[in-house]
């Protein structure tokens, strides 16, 4: 009974519910436009290209719920793809080592973001904005302005291929499986003591500190997680479409929008990982819907803006409204 209620509040309570509603509406719209969309293959294709944003959303969720921002993910994704192309340079054999290097790099960037924010007390908005600039410049400095080298087939597998010959759906993309695995991981992580401390730190730093929580450590860890998610996203995006100079540009705003759309409060202490990822899915679905409707390309940003504001406003109203709760007596 308690479980059921908890699930209820998780899905419908606070702002969280809105995103699932939104998701349903958008999918309904797509269905109306193009019933074929939900046939296995095209749905799989959709999930494949949505996976990176969902994974980024999970990473960003940790940072936001602990009361911070990570504006550097877009630049990091771009950097990772470029690093991969340059270091692999077409050599299949280098794939795995380079992936490890990328992981280390992602962790490193997260660590730096975290330490600057927690130890030097620089507001994360600025820390990560600075990191964005540094990454953007440094990576181009390194490659002389435009990506060089090329990716190996093996590197491209996770983002591009999948388990083929599956009945109905045709191909189950690796990206989807990775997304599901990491998503589940994120949800579980929030149930651990780390997750609870992260949440408390975002809600009331002082109270958490006085309860003995290592707030700074937790927050730094959140940045590291975000760095890792950006790395994975980089591997998937690079795998999906290969190298191009513009990879990752502007992703940071899309992903933060997604997380907030999921009812996660900027400033921390509220919202669930599941909803955050649902938010990412909703955004991707929205883009698909636009495409299905053949909405004039120049108008799309405007419509997107209206929908985002409306959804978040609706969620805000929901939050201040009664969320059904039992009147259980104490104990």
């Amino acid at each position, binding site marked *: 009974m308690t479980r059921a209620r908890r699930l209820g509040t998780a899905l419908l309570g606070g702002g969280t519910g809105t995103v699932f509603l939104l998701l349903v509406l958008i999918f309904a719209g797509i269905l109306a436009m*193009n019933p*074929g*969309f939900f046939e296995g*293959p*095209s749905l799989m*294709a959709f999930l494949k*290209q949505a996976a*990176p944003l969902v994974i980024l959303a999970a990473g960003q969720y940790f940072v936001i719920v602990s009361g911070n921002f990570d504006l550097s993910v877009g630049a990091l994704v771009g950097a990772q793809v470029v690093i991969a192309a340059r270091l692999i340079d077409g050599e299949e054999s280098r794939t795995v080592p380079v992936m490890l290097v990328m992981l280390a790099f992602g962790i490193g960037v997260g660590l730096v973001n975290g330490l600057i924010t927690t130890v030097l007390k620089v507001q994360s908005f600025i820390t990560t904005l600075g990191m964005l600039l540094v990454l953007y410049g440094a990576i181009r400095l390194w*490659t*002389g*302005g*435009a*990506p*060089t*080298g*090329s990716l190996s087939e093996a590197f491209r597998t996770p983002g*591009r291929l999948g388990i083929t010959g599956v009945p109905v759906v045709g191909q189950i993309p690796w990206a989807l499986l990775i997304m599901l695995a990491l998503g589940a991981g994120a949800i579980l992580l929030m149930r651990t003591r780390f997750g609870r401390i992260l949440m408390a730190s975002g809600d009331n730093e002082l109270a958490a500190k006085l309860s003995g929580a290592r707030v700074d450590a937790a927050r730094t860890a959140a940045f590291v997680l975000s760095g890792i998610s950006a790395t994975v996203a980089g591997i998937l*995006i690079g795998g*999906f*479409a*290969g*190298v*191009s*100079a*513009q*990879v990752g*540009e*502007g992703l940071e705003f899309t992903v933060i929008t997604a997380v907030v759309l999921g009812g996660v409060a900027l400033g921390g202490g509220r919202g669930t990982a599941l909803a955050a990822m649902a938010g990412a899915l909703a955004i991707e679905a929205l883009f*698909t819907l636009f*495409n*299905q409707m*053949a909405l004039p*390309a*120049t108008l799309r940003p405007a419509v997107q803006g209206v929908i985002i504001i409306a959804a978040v406003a609706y969620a805000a109203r929901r939050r201040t409204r009664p969320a059904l709760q039992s009147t259980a007596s104490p104990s």
Partner: protein
Amino acid sequence: TTDTPADDAATDESAPAADSGEWFVQAEYDEQLAQRDIEPEGDPNTPWLQAIEPEWVDTTEFKREGGDATVCFSNASVSNPWRVTGWITMQEQVKVLQEAGAIGEFRTSDAGDDDDQQISDIQAFVDSGECDALIVSPSTTATLTPAVETACASGIPVIVFDRGVNTDCATTFIHPIGGYAYGADAAEFLVENLEPGSTVLALRILPGVDVLEHRWAAAQQIFGDSEIEVLGNEFTGGDAAEIKNIVSQYLQRGDVDGIWMDAGDGAVAAIEAFEDAGKPYPVMAGEDELSFMRKWEETGMTAIAPVYSNFQWRTPVLAATMILNGEQVPAEWVLPQEPITAADRDEYLERNADMPALHYAKFGGEDLPGFPDAWRDR
């Protein structure tokens, strides 16, 4: 890439046109299409010095003794591979001229695609009073006009290239034929190689950039007069992921027989979308970016690489030396602009065999001493 010359250069009346959001100017369209068939003056082995129907202007007023002239260059940005390639070429050309003692110091500033920034950059050069010649690669057509005018007024020779400005005060304005020609080359190829009634998807970088709109405007003309059905025109920001995503969605809904692009960035991703969807390759118009040309060769698909001559980056510095020597230069220096076809594709791939993927085939720096290292190991 997002760079084509301002075809409305030297016509202040283009502003109203922009107002109405109407990009098509018949006269310019006809002129450019005609220019494609005109034999340019000069040595075909140095296309960057060729000129189509030049009107030579006298520059003795700028003649200057001693080869220590300071040449200043206000660059819009190096924010895309096409500009990066060109920028390297220009620097290599400068080295040659400096060693030859033709010019002295070469100063540059980069505005990072910010018009206001570039205006400040130009002002700074003018105020410093140390530039003997000023080269400008404007980041947007109309907005830099006042700044360039002030530069002209300061009495130094001003050389504008790539995109133009709405004034003809510059000593010379260097650019390849232009966007209408580019868009037409691509569109005509598709029309010729596709059955009537075939479907074409147009992939564009971003809206509102006058220089890109001309390519699309020309294409619309040609598609309009043909039996081709244009499925849609989508903005991709040149992001491979976005391109692949969009193309996949179109393929999921039906067949796409041809792809028209206003710039080659991410062309490979578009082709991969067809592979992943298990559909036959489209007839394709990309650009002379190597990644695309290599894919083209590898797949043997029917394609063309329209060219927006990257070698134009050599011309401005050369023009500067000519002007400082008081030699004549064309008032509007129209460089040749020929697409790469299946016929000469392999030759260009051969030449650029060890160049990186995002390098441009017609960069025209093969004879510079820095070649190939400067372009290969960036």
